[in-house]
């Protein structure tokens, strides 16, 4: 027995001796500088911005810890509307929203004089100080989208339906739509009697006793509906804590739908893959329409449909019906 135990211990000790080294592991390679340009042209504004940044590197496993200003200064950034209209963008600093994990300067190029035209080829070009050129183009087809209330609902609520929504048609293939629903209201004696907007969540859910609101995500579907519970919750919440319900005028509910152009649709598809908790993914699809770098350049068109509220329904909530 002793002989056997000695043999076992000897072999284990030998394995230990061979094995007790720890490992140093560095997943970082030499930084290879890349450039990123982003621009989403807003169709109903002449104020447009372009972000132009370079890649960066950290060695502490926390990319948020980087305070390096990655803005590319001194670039010549231009936008073309067709072949004729060209504007040169200037640089400025934007203030970040609260809660943003970044702690670094944020500068962009901007113009106040560029409104994208439909049915034109819109070009974006950035000539960097190092001579590198980033380019992209997009084309917004002039095809108005036909949008209607779901189930021809002009007044909310409609008897027998527990939802409201919109349905639309378009000829653009693989289009992605962004949706938003808001309620317009005013409160006499507050906000200068001005009309206020409140967003309606796509749906609500109670988690551990508190209400969690889920806002709509872009979709490929050609319709969108909101459950009545979310609409009614939003209606009640505009006067929450205010006993003077009769001072509220509720005007309408607006369903807005933005159709993203091809570049933005592809970009959205590539960045919005639903992930589950358990799968561990070590890479993900990247998409860029920027020649010579990363990022996206695109635009969208916005459409809306208005729905009014049934007066009796508002009355039961203590509100008055208004006209806007």
């Amino acid at each position, binding site marked *: 027995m002793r002989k*056997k135990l000695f*043999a*076992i211990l000897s*072999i*284990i000790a030998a*394995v230990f001796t061979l*094995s007790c080294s720890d*490992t140093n*592991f560095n*997943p*970082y*390679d030499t930084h290879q500088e*890349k450039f*990123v340009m982003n621009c*989403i042209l807003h169709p109903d504004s002449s104020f447009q*911005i372009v*972000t132009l*940044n*370079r890649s*960066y*590197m950290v060695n502490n*496993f*926390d*990319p948020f810890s980087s305070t390096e200003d*990655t803005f590319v200064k001194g670039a010549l950034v231009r936008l073309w509307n067709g072949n004729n209209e060209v504007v040169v963008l200037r640089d400025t600093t*934007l203030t970040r929203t609260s809660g943003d994990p970044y702690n670094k300067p*944020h500068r962009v190029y901007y113009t106040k004089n560029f409104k994208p035209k439909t049915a034109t080829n819109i070009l974006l070009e950035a000539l960097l100080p190092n001579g590198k050129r980033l380019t992209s183009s997009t084309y917004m087809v002039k095809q108005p989208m036909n949008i209607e209330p779901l189930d021809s609902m002009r007044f909310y609520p409609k008897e027998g339906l527990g939802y409201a929504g919109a349905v639309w048609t378009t000829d653009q293939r*693989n289009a992605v739509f*962004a949706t*938003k629903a808001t309620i317009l209201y005013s409160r006499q004696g507050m906000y200068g009697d001005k009309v206020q907007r409140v967003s309606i969540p796509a749906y609500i859910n109670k*988690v551990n006793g508190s209400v969690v609101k889920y806002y709509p*995500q*872009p979709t*490929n*579907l050609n319709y969108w509906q909101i459950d009545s519970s979310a609409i009614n919750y939003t209606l009640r919440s505009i006067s929450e804590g205010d006993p003077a319900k009769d001072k509220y005028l509720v005007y309408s509910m607006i369903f*807005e739908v*933005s159709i993203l152009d091809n570049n*933005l*649709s*592809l*970009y*959205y*598809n*590539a*960045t919005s*893959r*639903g*992930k*589950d*908790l*358990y*799968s*561990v*993914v*070590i*890479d*993900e*699809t990247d*998409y860029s329409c920027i020649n010579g770098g*990363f990022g996206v350049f695109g635009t969208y068109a916005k459409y809306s449909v208005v729905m009014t509220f049934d007066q009796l329904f508002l009355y039961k909530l203590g509100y008055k019906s208004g006209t806007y």
Partner: protein
Amino acid sequence: MRYFSSLLLLLTIFLSTNSVYSQETGTLRGLVSDSLSGEVLVYASAYIKEINKGAHTDTRGYFIIPSVPANKTYTVAVSYVGYQTKFITVEVDNNKLSHYNISLSAKGIQMQTIEKVGDRYEFQNDTKVSVQRIAARELELMPKGVETDVFRSIQYLPGVQTTGDVSAKYYVRGGAANQNLVLVDGVTVYNPFHALGLFGVIDPDIVNNLEFYKGGFAAEFGGRLSSVMSISTKDGDKNKFGATASSSFMAAKLLLEGPIPNGSFIISGRKSFSNKILDNFFDENHVPVDFYDVSMKTNFTSPDFIPGAKFTVSGMFSGDNLKQDNPRVEDYKWSNNIMGIRWLQVPDSPLFFELAFSTSQFKGELISKQSGATPKKNIVDDFSMEMNFNYVFDSKDEVVSGFHIRDITTTLAMNNAVGVPVEIKANGTSVVFFSKYKMLRFDEVDMDLGVRINAVNLSRNSSVVVMEPRLNIKIRPTDNFALIGAAGVYQQEISTVTNEYEVINIFEPWVISPEYIKPQVAAHYITGIEFVPSEDFFITVESYYKKIDNFPVVNQKKILVTDPDFVTGEAESYGVEIFNKSKLEFITLMASYTNAYTYKTLGGLRYYNKYDIRHQVNLNLDFDLGNGWNVGASWIFHSGLPYTKIIGYYDKMYIDDYFYQNSYADFRQPYTILGIDNLHRLPEYHKLDITLSKKFDLSFAKVTLDASIINVYNRKNIFYFKRENGERVNMLPFLPTATIKVKL
């Protein structure tokens, strides 16, 4: 066609010469079983000393020794691992088949005794190449993790790679995980894993024997490119009722078995009761695994019904449920439901005939709830009919022929990339004829020549008739040395949608190869040597080359709904494996070394596969200390797995609100820029696991206690690094576990 004609001609010549051996001789057939339970003993050996002839039992427990000089009495030595060798006197009549039922007595709690006689005849009468056989008793000696697992047991073999402690998923000689066929009593199991792949659904206590082919498998196996694991389950105790209860830190198990009129039954059920220990596997994330599995089999044999017939009905049902209380975290469940009925006919001639019907269903579903994960559902329905026979000629040559008819429907329901629900349903029927001629007539050369003919294919993008020729050859210049070789063509028409960049895959749906890609086809070429210098020492050296065409991979560049889900590439792997099994007094050693290379070519670019392991060393030591004490130790070392380095970050824009003028300027997150795929190597991996076992008898029961330690020296093996920030996640730390088994 010319090839096929030549094959037929060759067969005709061999068949015509078989009668030469059929004069003044008879055939000896035996069915070898355990004396207590009646369970058949697979690969037991039988040896007739007087004429220096022998054979080993097949997976049904039968051996056949043909051309035994007739009208004489012989002494047959029958032996098996862990059993007392039995010497029986037999009489062989001219031109007749003499059948004997032979029962062997186990040597009790002294488990590790390898009989020498059988090994030699396995060496001399076997054409199989790259095969590993593991009997039920050997499974008990394998190092145990959280649960004893047949899949973990093969990971110690050369040529079998894994990418982590967390998954029992395995890669064989550079093939993908979905290229491994798992058969339980001949029925395909599509997802044989519990708990996100931690261990297998097949209860080791119900396994009679396991054959694992790493390549070069013969014509009776098909449908997968890389490996075949063929598991035969136990029939159940034919003599008395018994119950075995066991428990680990995670699951409890009960097995019942016993005789029924003209047969026996066995049923085993396992259910998880705690998943605390699993938190160690998932980086301290709590994973609420809840699983069960039930395996059952019953058999019926009656000379009054059909003489020589044996009917078995078997089933295996497993289910996993990951149910999260939090509505923002998705649920996942999957299940296997398998049933089979088999008729084995053993007439009074050296012929075996089998007819089987089976159904195998896999269901997997990801229920997204409010998590934002994409809901998915996959169903595989497989209905099969199989008929085969094998006949042993007087010359010892064998012919094995048959056909498989299989109807498979795969359904994949999910929301596509832009949220539209889609259902991809495919149905196909395959009709495959196979035939092989096993030439064992010469002392120096054994050969297995066969062909698999896919007359009707599952995939619509396949030739009308696909031929898969197979050849195995073994040349023995001396009694203890053999040169081996194998070559073959293999086709696979069903595959999983596997994202190679997922180190843990929760959802790997099976789909029939879509019409726009051709079924994947592999060619295997294997050469090597087997050397048995003494009865306690066995060594094999094998080299292999495997080439796979139309290798499907998930299209990482899919952006549009209309983009294909798969793109195809080529894969290539080659390597050398050395395997040694030796016994020195009370120590049994299994040692192996693998040197392997695995590549894939996609879009004209050649990469290392994620499971490309250049060097791997496995050491398995078993110490039989006597008095029921046993110590098992296994040490694995392999060089680093490929990975892709980070070459920088950029602030990627994630668009949250298309209605807010400057929203895109703010909603950004660091995005990792990766270098060239799999160009660098993770640090080397090594780990020592130890199991201490004690078997003892109580007045009413036999008890087995196992205490195991996984990763004894707490090696910090890297599992992966997080793509978003480069932080490393390690594999299993030092982890003690224990199991208890009580057999009444």
